[in-house]
């Protein structure tokens, strides 16, 4: 099991390099809307979606990269959201069953309802994020002059806060609703088992001290009680 962990870390290190190229290719797509095409920003270099995309457009990948790195910035505790694979995570989620509305009751009529009544839009998650990203970028252009992923870190934070509080105006649904969905996805990708493409190298589990799944504690539960443990986390892939 330990052998498996080593090439993985190596892969991650390499990813930073490969990622820069991919980032340039990606932001290129979004850049067509804007002239002149800007140089790849420092933040965009962290894009690192070194996996081919299944569902996201280049502009969507650039947005997610910037958004996840704003929510989960790199520091001594962990790499940034995108470095942890969250764009890959999101891409797979939106390409798959959940993203396309499986297990969602989709019959009309559709009415806005009260907050207590929960999600009432006809959109699948795939469609919801597509619409939300367009609205977020329109808001960013209107307020700060550029798409969200081109903003400075300070402006991104301001834009994120405006969506979080609902102050940002979106045409079709509340920006707060978009923020909450984005936020939930970021947390899912960051903390889920790495099998889903995020949480590379179990970065978030290391950050909080979650040991993952070695979990047979019948013999140790008493011995471990109240003690700080230093268990190398293990994920699903470590057991197959």
């Amino acid at each position, binding site marked *: 099991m330990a052998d498996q962990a080593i090439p993985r870390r190596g892969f991650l290190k390499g990813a930073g390099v490969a990622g820069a190229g991919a980032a340039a290719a990606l932001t290129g797509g979004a850049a067509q809307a804007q002239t002149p095409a800007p140089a790849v920003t420092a933040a965009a270099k962290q894009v690192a979606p070194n996996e081919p995309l299944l569902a996201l457009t280049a502009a969507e990948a650039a947005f997610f990269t910037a958004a996840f790195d*704003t*929510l989960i*910035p790199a*520091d001594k*505790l*962990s790499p940034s959201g995108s470095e942890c694979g969250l764009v890959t995570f999101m891409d797979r989620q939106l390409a798959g069953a*959940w993203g396309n*509305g*499986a*297990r*969602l*009751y*989709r*019959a009309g*009529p559709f*009415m806005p*309802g*009260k*907050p*207590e*009544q*929960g*999600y*009432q839009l006809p959109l699948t998650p795939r469609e919801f994020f597509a619409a939300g990203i367009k609205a977020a970028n329109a808001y960013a252009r209107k307020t700060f002059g550029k798409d969200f992923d081109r903003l400075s870190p300070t402006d991104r*934070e301001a834009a*994120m806060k405006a969506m*979080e509080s609902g102050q940002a105006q979106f045409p079709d649904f509340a920006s707060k609703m978009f923020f909450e969905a984005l*936020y939930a996805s*970021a*947390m*899912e990708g960051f*903390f*889920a*088992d790495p*099998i*889903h493409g995020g949480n590379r190298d179990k970065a*978030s*589990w290391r*950050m*909080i*001290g*979650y*040991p993952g*799944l070695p*979990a*047979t*504690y*019948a013999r140790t*539960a*008493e011995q*471990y*009680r*109240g*003690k*700080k*443990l230093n268990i190398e986390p293990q994920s*699903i892939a*470590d*057991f*197959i």
Partner: protein
Amino acid sequence: MAKVMKSVDVVIVGLGWSGSIMARELTKAGLNVVALERGAERTPAEDFVFPYIRDELKVRVRNGLMLDTATETLTMRNAPGDTALPMRRWDVFSLGDNVGGAGSHWNGITWRFTPSEFVLRSHLRERYGRDAIPAELQLQDWGVTYDDLEPHYDRFEKLCGTSGKAGNLKGRIVEGGNPFEGPRSDEYPNKPLIMSQAGLMLTKAARELGLHPFPTPASNSSAPYTNPEGCAIGQCQYCGHCEYFGCEANAKASPNICLHPVLFRDPKFELRTLSYVKSLNYDAQSRRVRGVVYIDRRTGEEVEQPAEMVVLCAYPFNNVLLMRLAGIGKPYDPATGEGVIGKNYCYQTNSAVGVFVDEEINPFIGTGVSPAVVDDFQGDNFDHGPLGFFGGGYISPTVSGGRPIQVRATPPGTPRWGAAWKEATAQWYNHWFPLSIHGTSYAHRNNYLDLDPTYRDAIGRPLVRMTFNYPENDRKMSVFLTNKANDIAKAMNARFTTPAPRTSNFGAANGQASHHTGGVIMGTDPKTSALNRYLQSWDCDNLFVMGGAAFPQNAGHNPTGTIAALAYWSAKAITEQYIKAPGRLVHG
């Protein structure tokens, strides 16, 4: 035209705990039983396999083992005047599906209700006066008592290998158990689970406050065990993947491991999966159902299954739906308070206090059942005289796995994202737990189930419409209990506490349990209840209805121990009385 099958003695609709217990008891009595289950087969050996079962995103967050809302869901509104809308995904709670039902992925908390719960109306009137019950509440007696059910609770605990400590053995109060429980005929079959750090902290703080902490009864077996059916149960590994998950150690009791191995070998039993019961064939004149009609989901074909007797074990929502569609029993009308089908839908009034402490909690070492609890503020275990509400609940730390997508907290005032959030998350992940309150849900005139006029499920039936909000009484209870829990948290020397009582409307982001009761309630009078004390329909002699649906109101303890005891109780009446002389067991 429906394909018509050969008639059988009994059709059971739904194969969760209720259906499995019923099927086992009736086949043992010599009856031929067909169980129709809308979902697929589910066996721990194939479906609950390590490491894949421990996938928090797939199994818990995306509700991997739960009913698919695209197939069937409910509509919901807070009050009779509102427009109900479909629960398009599980934002508040989720429902079971497939063989084993919710029993294959429950937590395992296995309570007996307190004796006064079964005679709630009489008890409160006697203790607090004839007019003491607030007008908004529709509280009723069950028609069955704790003493009636005691032997059946005992059977269920032995079936599950429940781990716990008796507090009242045949009337003698036993140190270390629950002094408020009704008298038990026997100890629990297994010793309590290993105490967790949070459990130790609760125990110490509660004792200092003069309360009576004890180990929560858990159907997560503390040792390898063989139940009276001869089925083997493994030893719990404290892996932190109970609630919403299946147990790969076979240590958490489920119909799948505690009953199905024997039931499925019995030639008198036949299971048909992917068989979605659509309607009952009811003949009002003869007061009998002639059988059921179901959709074979493999072919889409409609199949009629005639039977001498039908037992609905399909969870409260489908039980209500099938009764309503067949026209059995008078539909409940909140405007007049008359009628019975759909009446007294209740939920669970849960809340929590976040507790931030210095101690290392290691929340990932745990089971679905917190090993320590206090029941001092349960039901009517304390004097409600001056309080202005009835009911209560139990208080226990919820440390059931620390699965990180969902189980994290940061102190009040911490930003929700960014560097400061990361730092606080890293700092507090192992130093926080919720101290949970699991409270009563008392019947309110406006809380009920009926048929939605607009939305339909995948087989064309109307969705069940839930009209529910937390009654004023229950909100007051929640504030009182949450304050009590906060006192306990402070006695643990918590750095911060975050009490959050249920004071706003029921709905998305403000519900917490998958416990639903009422709709086809039992009682003593056909005018106010749908079932007699043996869970037989007052209107239809060969129809019995199991599950939480039969509860007149919901207690503060989790429901499944009582659901199972009622199934054994009803099965006893069927096998000892009904099959000898099919007809009304009680004359209303």
